[in-house]
């Protein structure tokens, strides 16, 4: 239901276009085909989840989009630009499983880091930084060091940092992978709340079926050897999706469908 909530975006406009991309990793003893001719289009304002077994290349795909790896064949375009040109304008936000915070910087100064890397004046963005800290629910912790925060709070800082430049593309690489199941569900709802407040095009890598079904508009199922897309499933639930959705029978049916897609592709 991409059109329902991405209503202000022109339909059919692809923010991200991955065109028959291949990538091979060579180690001394073996060659791994991480991605084999992967094509994917992501509409403006939609939330796409990449799911699949480890080694299916989902993280590699995300890293290609961020320009952290280069494709061997094919092309990655973000609004018709290369990742390098796109990210140099601060249009890209990214968060990983590891919050990757600078341990010697306070929450506020960690959130400010992207502006410094982009060569902008931090003083001009003070309000934006404080807004983001408030948005992720960390008001009152702005001057705390990462070491004084819990795992979930650190992950919120990472998400605030990813959103602070007002990016048009958000990349999330298993952002809650290190959290326990209960905290993870809370964070899923938090992320949805934040995302509805400013629905930017989002690509999230996850290995949790219910996280993908809860958050995404579309779930892209991948498989390994070689890394490829095997199925794309639309998620029809209207937003905002509440915690009761986790218990709903239609939610479970959809999770079963996703599991089946993962299974059948693995059996192939």
């Amino acid at each position, binding site marked *: 239901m991409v059109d329902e909530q991405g209503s202000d975006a022109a339909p059919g406009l692809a923010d991200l276009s991955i065109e028959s991309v291949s990538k091979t990793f060579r180690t001394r003893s073996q060659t791994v085909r991480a991605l084999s001719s992967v094509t994917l289009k992501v509409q403006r304002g939609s939330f796409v989840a990449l799911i699949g077994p480890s080694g299916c290349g989902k993280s590699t795909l995300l890293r290609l989009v961020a320009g*952290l790896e280069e494709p061997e064949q094919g092309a990655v375009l973000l609004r018709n630009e290369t990742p390098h040109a796109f990210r140099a304008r601060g249009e890209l936000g990214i968060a990983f499983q590891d919050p*990757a915070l600078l341990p010697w910087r306070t929450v506020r100064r960690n959130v400010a880091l992207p502006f410094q*890397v982009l060569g902008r004046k931090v003083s001009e963005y003070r309000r934006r930084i404080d807004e983001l800290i408030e948005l992720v629910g960390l008001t009152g912790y702005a001057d705390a060091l990462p070491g004084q925060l819990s795992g979930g709070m650190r992950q919120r800082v990472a998400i605030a940092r990813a959103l602070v430049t007002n990016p048009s593309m958000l990349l999330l690489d298993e952002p809650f992978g290190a959290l326990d199941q209960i905290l993870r569900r809370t964070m899923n709802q938090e992320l949805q709340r934040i995302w509805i407040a400013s629905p930017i095009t989002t690509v999230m890598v996850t290995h949790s079926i219910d996280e993908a079904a809860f958050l995404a508009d579309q779930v892209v199922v991948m498989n390994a050897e070689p890394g490829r897309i095997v199925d794309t499933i639309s998620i029809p639930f209207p937003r905002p999706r509440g915690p009761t959705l986790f218990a709903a029978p239609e939610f479970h049916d959809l999770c079963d469908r996703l599991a089946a897609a993962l299974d059948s592709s693995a059996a192939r």
Partner: protein
Amino acid sequence: MMRARLNTFLYLFSVLLLWELAGRSLHAVRDVIATPSMILAQYWTAADLYVPHILATLRSAAFGFLIGNSIAVIAAILFCRFPVVENSFRGVNIALFAMPPIVIGPVLAIIFNGDLPQIMLAALVVYFPTMAATLLGLREIDPRLLDVISAYGGGSNTALRFVRLRSALPAILAGLRTAAPLSVLGAILGEFGSGVRWGLGSFLLGSLGDSDPARLLGIGFAATAVAMAGYAFFAWISRMTLGATVAVTIAANRSPDQIAFTGKYSWSKRAALFVVAVALPFILWWGILRVARISSIIAPGPMETLRYLFFVPDSADARAQIVAALAQTLPLAGLGLLFGLAAAFAIAALTLVRPAVASAIMPVAMILQTMPLIALVPLVLLLFGRDTATTVVMAVLVVFFPAYVMLAQGFALVPRAARELVQVYGGSRSRELVLVSVPYAASYLFAAAKLVAPRALLGVMVAEWLLSGRGLGNLLNTSRGLLDYDMVWAGAGISILISVIAYETISAVERLARRN
């Protein structure tokens, strides 16, 4: 923490008390190692000697510390930013790591005047540990942080500015902490080579003949105190700036292998870099003398030294002298290395079975590790005399403490789950030691061997120079006195070459052992 400190204090106090009582009641003890009160008394009566000697050493050490560490930090940043530069300097780095600094003293004394030889030697001695610690600190960072920087279009310089430099701060401070006592050692070894009037090294040289135990031990303790004050100062700074004591002591005890950048180079590029790495030390040797316009009579370059050793009428005689000296020095260094390492490994393993032993040895080992080996000379002389056994004892002592600290840390890092697995199947502590801990810590044995092999050679040469009057150490000392410049340079060059070969041999054995 407080309790441990109190225990160490009580321990030291009771040792001193026992020593005093034994010395007072027994002539044999008093005549050999004096008593603490005698040592204190001579500090008082000879204060007019101690103060200028200490100040002279302190000044050389401080300048050398400043110069050497500045170069080390700048070099580490360059190496981190441009790995090819590091690959090219690999030979230089290994030479500076493995060289016995005592052989550089006479060479520096030929080139420089006044305090400069001591300052330069102190700078050379502190370079490697600080450079290695800094480089590792700059490199060992969370790769995700670099991804975050890249995601906003930041490059290597941005990463250096926002992430690497600040990340490396604890490691840099750990490097400086290790470097502080080393700079004192470097300054003292430089004084031996240059024969200046003032300095603790000169003081020791002048007092060796008097065989006054209180004076000799007094100088040893003074050198230790100066070195440990430097260590304590930087330990205090890192506590103040970093809030907590971070356990990064190991960072400053790395060998060149552990910092080497292993990039993905083609075969041809790797071969070219190898040639550059081997040639660069010799090119620098030649180039520095050229640039400084120093006469080749007092400062022969690599080619002249080769000629001296092989292509002039006296070559055979020179070679015979060097071979005879090596035949005395190398077996002793090897023996000292073997005994020292074996003892360190055995005691480190024993402390795993009897943790109480560890808590008794560790503080002493940590203190003695920072003690400049020069301070051991008086003690070894008074207890063992001047014969060959003394030389081995010196090497063993120099090897044992750093090796023990490293191996004990290695044993401490054995995963608990692996050890508990043996216990779950009813295995005893000793069984667990044989099956899990010893194989696990064996890799630290190689690391320790690489770290202490140069020290074994240095220990032997210091003992030869000051005490036994044999071997390579003595050859360098007498050539220096006879103004036999060619021999000083040749002896220094060969000593460094042998150290580098010993280092590379241990590395090669390690690689073989790893492969199996």
